[in-house]
């Protein structure tokens, strides 16, 4: 194992007082020791990445810093002063802002109302809605974000919701800005935009904590990396000079193999799923494609291209105006998800909190949720024992970090929640699987695990559609790549195509002039 415990202040002048110091932080939840002697340090003007596997304690540590949780033990210093942070309000007043991993928006309010909640501009005791929207527009403009301040958050895709959260955090003009997986739902263009903002803030002397499972991002923007494992501090290393493999092995405690993509020849396999002339309004326009048995079809496109819409329409989650769906050469009528599942189609939603997880149920029942009839005996009595066994199997196989299979799903870390939802579909054993952003919020180790799993499923002869906004992921997995833009399928590429080819199709706009970022910028 490479040298880990590099000095905390590596690469920095040790005489300057750090913005934030956290020492020996402990935090336990019932049945879980989330943090144990955790350590962290942040300086003004640096981007400090916090890395670790799912459930390593990253979010918990940052929630302690931002006043959401109180620590059980340890010391937090701000500008060298010991502080007690007991509420989010207090953290804000101290200049600590956070973008939470799990979106915390008020769905019935508008974007602007969300951003300025608690700090609404007033005019003689009344809310000044005009100023509110103006200020919001200014923030959106500075982010090059094309969004109406008056749009209700509920109607936004998670990517846009994530952008609203970012705008909200920026509006506080904090000295310390914590970003807990801000890019999990973003596409490349938006990520680039975010990084511009980060660099600007950095130049202004803001200290930024950056949590992400996307390895490439770490190299691109962070100055230092602190690695955590199982709630403990592992080490802090300079981002530039440390090889990625070292960071990963510090995270997972072993080295990961990085298998190259092997594209099997599936052209002779029978078609498993065929979609013909799918249409709905402006979101889905005449989409037709097919997937063969044993094939992984990547579905690429920019945010809002309509990939999720297509998947939901196939699955019967949303109505469609026209279009036929054929499974194994037979036309199937799908008007509700249960029809799709009966036809052997499974769909993993991109929004686990809203559509994937029954947060009040425990891990076991979430995994079994789509397959309950398999465990139902005479008289409707459930075989809980059997459910427990399969739950245990998936907890082991996917390395789901949970004290037991009876832990409530909402208490798991974000990435582990995602694994639970994946397990649900693996257990259901569908012949056709549509995975919408399956690795959102999942750590490198588990990601590799899931890639392996998808490959194994394909080898077993299943047809798989993977929707992902991460091009490397699409390229790493897909045997063929379908690309969408503005509701249309703009092309299908063979596996191993280049990023440029995909991007060309993804921006092949059928519609006339669309506002571009550069136009906005000049405005």
């Amino acid at each position, binding site marked *: 194992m490479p040298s880990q415990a590099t000095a905390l202040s590596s690469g920095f002048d040790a005489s300057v007082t750090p913005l934030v110091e956290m020492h020996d932080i402990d935090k336990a939840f019932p049945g879980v020791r989330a943090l144990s002697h955790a350590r962290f340090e942040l300086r003004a003007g640096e981007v400090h990445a916090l890395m670790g596997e799912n459930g390593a304690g990253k979010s918990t540590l940052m929630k302690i810093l931002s006043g959401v949780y109180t620590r059980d033990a340890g010391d937090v210093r701000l500008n060298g002063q010991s502080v007690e942070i007991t509420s989010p309000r207090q953290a804000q007043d101290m200049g600590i802002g956070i973008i939470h991993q799990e979106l915390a928006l008020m769905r019935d309010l508008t974007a602007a109302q969300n951003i300025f*909640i*608690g700090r609404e501009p007033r005019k003689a005791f009344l809310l000044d809605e005009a100023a509110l929207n103006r200020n919001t527009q200014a923030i959106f403009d500075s982010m090059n974000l094309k969004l109406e301040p008056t749009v209700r958050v509920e109607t936004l895709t998670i990517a846009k919701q994530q952008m609203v959260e970012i705008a909200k955090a920026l509006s506080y003009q904090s000295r310390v800005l914590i970003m807990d997986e801000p890019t999990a739902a973003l596409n490349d263009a938006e990520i680039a935009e975010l990084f511009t903002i980060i660099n600007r803030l950095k130049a202004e002397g803001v200290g930024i904590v950056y949590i992400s499972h996307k390895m490439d991002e770490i190299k691109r923007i962070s100055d230092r990396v602190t690695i955590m494992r199982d709630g403990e501090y592992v080490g802090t290393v300079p981002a530039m000079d440390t090889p990625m493999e070292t960071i990963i092995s510090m995270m997972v405690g072993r080295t990961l193999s990085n298998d190259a993509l092997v594209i099997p020849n599936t052209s002779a396999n029978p078609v498993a799923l065929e979609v013909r002339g799918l249409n709905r309004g402006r979101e889905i326009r005449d989409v037709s494609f097919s997937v063969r048995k044993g094939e992984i079809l990547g579905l690429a496109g920019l945010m809002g291209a309509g990939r999720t819409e297509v998947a939901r329409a196939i699955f019967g989650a949303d109505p469609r105006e026209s279009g036929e769906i054929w499974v194994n050469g037979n036309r199937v009528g799908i008007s509700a998800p249960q029809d799709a599942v009966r036809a052997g189609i499974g769909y993993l939603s991109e929004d686990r909190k*809203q559509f994937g997880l029954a947060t009040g149920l425990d891990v076991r029942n979430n995994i079994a949720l789509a397959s309950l009839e398999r465990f139902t005996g005479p008289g409707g009595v459930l075989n809980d024992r059997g459910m427990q066994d399969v739950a245990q199997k998936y907890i082991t196989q996917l390395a789901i970090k949970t004290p037991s299979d009876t832990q409530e799903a909402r208490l798991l870390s974000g990435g582990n929640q995602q694994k639970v939802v994946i397990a649900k579909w693996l257990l259901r054993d569908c012949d056709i699987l549509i995975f919408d952003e399956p690795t959102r919020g999942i750590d490198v180790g588990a990601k590799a695990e899931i890639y392996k799993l998808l490959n194994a499923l394909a080898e077993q002869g299943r047809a798989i559609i993977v929707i992902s906004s991460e091009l490397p992921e699409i390229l790493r997995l897909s045997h063929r790549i379908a690309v969408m833009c503005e509701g249309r399928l703009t092309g299908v590429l063979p596996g191993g195509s280049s990023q440029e080819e995909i991007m060309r199709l993804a921006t092949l706009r059928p519609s006339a002039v669309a506002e571009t970022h550069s136009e906005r910028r000049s405005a």
Partner: protein
Amino acid sequence: MTETAIPAAKSGPRISGAFHRLLAFSGLIALVVVFSLASPNFMQTQNVLAILQATSVNGVLAIAATLVIITGGIDLSVGTLMTFCAVITGVVLTNLGLPLPLGILASILAGTFCGLVSGTIIAKLKVPPFIATLGMMLILKGLSLVISGTKPIYFNDTPGFNQIALGSAVGSVFPAVPVPNGVLVLFLVAGLAAFVLSKTALGRYTFALGSNEEAVRLSGVNVDRWKIAVYAVAGSICGVAGLLIASRLNSAQPALGQGYELDAIAAVVIGGTSLSGGRGTVVGTLIGALIISVLANGLRILSVAQEWQTVVTGCIIILAVYADILRRRTL
């Protein structure tokens, strides 16, 4: 209550909010049209005024309930709180013989105070709103009886008192439309509540709390304080309802009030406010309250047997709400 979160308004152009709102009247208008055709007596000025008058107390209570329901809470105590406020007014005006303005003030203060107490129990002690306001409902019911000595308190010594609900300031200017003051009070309260909801910080937090209380808390807002404020405002509105009913009956009837909460909440829900919080309008609640009174009045005007009135009311409430759902779905 869980609502299916199918992204509804995905296709088709958005139609303007005003038109949308106009259509919300459709259930009400349908009822009015049917009753007008069925009975010539229905649309007479006097009957229309009777309907409005009949809406006033329930309408005001329903507005109070609307505020609380938008926060995602519920208030079962609106009815008995109204009675309690009426009794307090009775004590102030009749038993203590103080002047009218003090009686009015006492009612509203009593309502505000009780709302504060409920709100505090809910926000600080984390007792679910259903339980806190159920407890309040019982406590206030008992206290009204205790304070009044289980007897009505009459306002015979305060001559102007019954003008609050029954007089007609409008009628004294336009004798052709003697709209009772009680109805004016209803519209005044509605206007104020709508204003508070849309223009003030209190209104903003009311919606925010019902939308995602945890998010509001994480945004550093003092959630408890605002929640208590909402219950207090709702309480003060119940105080207004107490004045209205006392004025109308020219007495504080200590035994009245229980059961009124169901009508009030029904008006709110018929008006399209969701019991899970985060959304709702005062206009919707007014329409809901009107639907209830129009139904009751119309069926009586048609001399439908009482047991059948109940059956028909049940059916029409379901149908009205279903029509509203269909309308929203197809738009």
